[in-house]
């Protein structure tokens, strides 16, 4: 079952490490004397490797046209070399096509010879733990986690760590993304607003008017009726990705959410599904229905997927779309290449209830879990790999080192080659705060290496913009455009997020573990029903048919899902 797609990680290479025969000559690895541990604080333990070479088996699943930079390969790249330095020797078990990664892992497990460390989807995680495939790392974590790793795991208040705990034991390391990157924002053609002398819409009523104007009032001034208001992702509904319809419902305090099963705390303090707010949902549906009738919502929105939304915006056809923080990037690049007057701005979702501002739902953003095999004799290798990763990516010693391990698309393939890659959570918000301050004040002393390089790109772009000629083919300039749109534009994505944070307009999801088995079983059916109902109502069915749908929703497993979520919330004191 597909899971929350919030901040999904690219896995151009999914690794598996298997410790088949961690023979280290009989000595217990990692205890006893060590040499050259990289200066961490916990005394004599080697948190980054072993004293004697330890062989680990790796499994890769890469896309057809995966590109290695700088002449690197599976057996020779910055990460592999780093591991070897620390006496962790990867040995390749398999290297198959990306499309086969689940199948390969599955058959490998069945034949008993599978990678020891591997990444799993959050929804599958519990089954791996329960069938004895993933091993218990509670003790190893306690003993070997570096301070940085511990800080990482605590960064979301412990939500992620809870989700990887089964029966009190930890079975994997969660990949914690940035919750802020899951919040839907509104992206709009500021230049069109300016041309039509309209204000940034703050309420849904205003949005409706603006969408209409974008469709019928020739906002690009070319005399042709080739524009329209709102682009919606009709292919991937309720996936909190680009163009997702969730945003519209959020305006009315309804949160059907990612994969159609977001849980919120209702007015009565009880956990409930975000879509049970029938009034809110119906208001959102009515809004969309109106836009659809009016023509301000593309009639063929059902055929548009995430890519298409980019296309619609980037080709200047639509003027409004909703998406996560990175939703304005590609269109900005495409449009600015030919028209320097284009300005894409971002704002929180408009207010549908005249309550002073819509609220955004924050969900736990675990995109994957790294597990170690239950058959492995050295479960702590997982922790050590994580330590290495957090050290090199989170606090690199120099820009060169950052490039080596994160990748620079020229000489180093970077993180795609690492066996375990944890994202630095809330990195983006931090980027925003620091970088926009630095841009304004001119003082870059507070910035880290990544931020400095990003700022350089932004400055290059701004200079080019001033000069009036933007060469979007230049990677620095196009990098600058993207980064500016997200981090430094006073009306950019993170500026909008910042507003939400400042105005306390973020609410936490009420259920933060991974879906239970029953939820998983039912979620596909429930989501399908929800999506179908939404589409039918937008394209013409009566808005009140939502009530009938809701009854079916409860009956088909929604009721039990809510009950389970409530149970979890109660047990964890939420």
């Amino acid at each position, binding site marked *: 079952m597909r899971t929350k797609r919030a901040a999904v990680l690219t896995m151009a290479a999914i690794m598996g490490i298997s410790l088949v025969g961690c023979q280290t000559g009989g000595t217990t690895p990692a205890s006893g004397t060590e040499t050259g541990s990289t200066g961490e604080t916990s005394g004599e333990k080697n948190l980054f490797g072993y004293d004697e070479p330890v062989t680990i088996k790796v499994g890769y699943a890469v896309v057809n046209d995966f590109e290695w930079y700088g002449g690197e390969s599976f057996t020779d790249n910055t990460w592999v070399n780093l591991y070897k330095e620390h006496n962790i020797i990867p040995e390749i078990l398999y290297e198959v096509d990306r499309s086969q990664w*689940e*199948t390969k892992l*599955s058959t490998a*497990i069945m*034949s008993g010879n599978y990678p020891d460390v591997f990444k799993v989807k959050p929804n599958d995680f519990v089954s791996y733990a329960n069938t004895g495939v993933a091993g218990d790392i509670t003790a190893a974590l306690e003993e070997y986690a570096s301070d940085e790793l511990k800080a990482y795991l605590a960064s979301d208040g412990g939500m992620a760590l809870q989700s990887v705990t089964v029966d009190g034991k930890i079975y994997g390391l969660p990949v914690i993304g940035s919750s802020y990157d899951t919040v839907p924002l509104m992206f709009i053609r500021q230049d069109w607003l300016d041309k039509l002398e309209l204000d940034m819409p703050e309420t849904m009523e205003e949005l409706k008017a603006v969408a209409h104007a974008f469709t019928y009032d020739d906002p690009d001034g070319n005399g042709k009726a080739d524009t329209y208001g709102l682009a919606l992702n009709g292919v991937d509904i309720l996936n909190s990705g680009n163009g997702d319809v969730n945003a519209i419902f959020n305006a009315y305090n309804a949160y059907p959410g990612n994969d159609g099963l977001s849980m919120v705390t209702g007015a009565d303090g009880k956990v409930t599904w975000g879509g049970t707010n029938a009034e809110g949902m119906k208001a959102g549906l009515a809004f969309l229905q109106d836009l659809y009738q009016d023509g301000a919502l593309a009639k063929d929105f059902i*055929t*548009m997927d995430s890519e298409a939304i980019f*296309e*619609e915006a980037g*080709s200047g056809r639509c003027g409004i779309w909703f998406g996560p923080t990175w939703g304005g990037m590609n269109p900005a690049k495409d449009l600015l290449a030919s028209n320097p007057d284009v300005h894409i701005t971002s704002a929180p979702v408009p207010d549908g209830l005249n309550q002073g501002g819509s609220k955004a739902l924050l969900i736990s953003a675990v995109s994957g879990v790294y597990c170690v095999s239950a058959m492995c004799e050295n479960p702590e290798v997982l922790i050590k790999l994580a330590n290495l990763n957090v050290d090199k990516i989170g606090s690199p010693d120099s820009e060169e080192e950052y490039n080596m391990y994160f990748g620079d698309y020229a000489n180093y393939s970077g993180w795609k080659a690492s066996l375990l890659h944890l994202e630095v959570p809330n990195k983006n918000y931090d980027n925003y705060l620091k970088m926009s301050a630095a841009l304004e004040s001119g003082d870059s002393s507070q910035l880290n290496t990544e931020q400095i390089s990003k700022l350089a790109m932004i400055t290059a772009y701004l200079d080019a913009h001033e000069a009036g000629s933007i060469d979007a083919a230049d990677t620095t300039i196009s990098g600058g455009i993207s980064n500016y749109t997200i981090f430094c534009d006073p009306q950019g994505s993170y500026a909008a997020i910042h507003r939400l944070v400042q105005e306390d307009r973020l609410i936490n999801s009420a259920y933060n573990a991974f879906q239970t088995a029953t939820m998983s079983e039912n979620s596909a059916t429930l989501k399908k029903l929800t999506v179908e109902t939404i589409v039918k109502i937008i394209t013409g069915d009566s808005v009140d048919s939502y009530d009938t749908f809701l009854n079916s929703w409860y009956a088909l497993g929604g009721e039990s899902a809510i009950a389970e979520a409530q149970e979890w919330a109660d047990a964890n004191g939420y």
Partner: protein
Amino acid sequence: MPMGIRSMKQKYRNKTDQLFFHGMLLLPVVLLFIYHILPIPAGILMAFQNFQPMKGFLGSDFIGFQNFRKLALLPDTFPALRNTLMIAVWKVIGNLVIPVTFALLLNEVRVTWFKRTVQTITYLPYFLSWVILSGIMIQFLSPGSAATSPGLFNALLMKLHIIENPVYFLGTNGTFRQTMVISDIWKNFGYNTIIYLAALTGIDPTLYEAAAVDGAGRIKQTLHITLPGIAPFIALMTILAIGNILNAGFDQIFNLYNPAVYASGDIIDTLVYRLGLVNRQYSLSAAVGLLRSVVSCILVLTGYKLADQFAGYKIW
């Protein structure tokens, strides 16, 4: 030669002959045993266990019919079953009607080079694998997106004003099944036509002459001579096809389907694949597989029995 010696020699010859025959069959039998027979009890065992690779066959719990009960409750099961039957039945009908009609039409053609060329060209798709055909079809039937243009089929239909907007044949539940059936017919009809053409040539030409003398036109001839003439053959093919009802075409569907069309396109075999090789629900997968095997076996045997009784058709 005296009788006694001859029969002894015969016996001796017989023994060596028998040894020879057994010897010939040894290797194939062993290979078949390992790779076809052995998996059967493995699959049966898996289906009745809660198989976990970590525990192996000996360690996994035996849970009887629970897997089958779970199957009955799984939302994918019924659609898979329904889709399998619908697609397979339509394919049987289509792969009968179209080639027979085409064979009849082609039979009326007197120009030999035309006939030959037609057969040659239409025969080709039969040999192409579904991987290749999927590659062709996905592009050919593509509805396009904002980033690319529609494939030739949609482009043509739009040009002829048959449709206004591109249709996502491979991604819409309303069109997926039909696309599967029609493309299967397209792939196979060259081959099938040749078979039916051969059957047509088996009809006694004097019957036609007699009918012509009696004043029957071509249509009447077709109705009263041709069709009854190949009817037994068609019946035989249909009966044999019964055994294949659960075989809706894994190769084709696997390469052409996607989650958006599971509702109309997921078949038993793709379900088995997904449950076992993707979702690691090994026992459930084995359970579906077992059910399928059993039903399929019954159908095939029934088909053969009927074919034997009806047309004296024996395979072994």
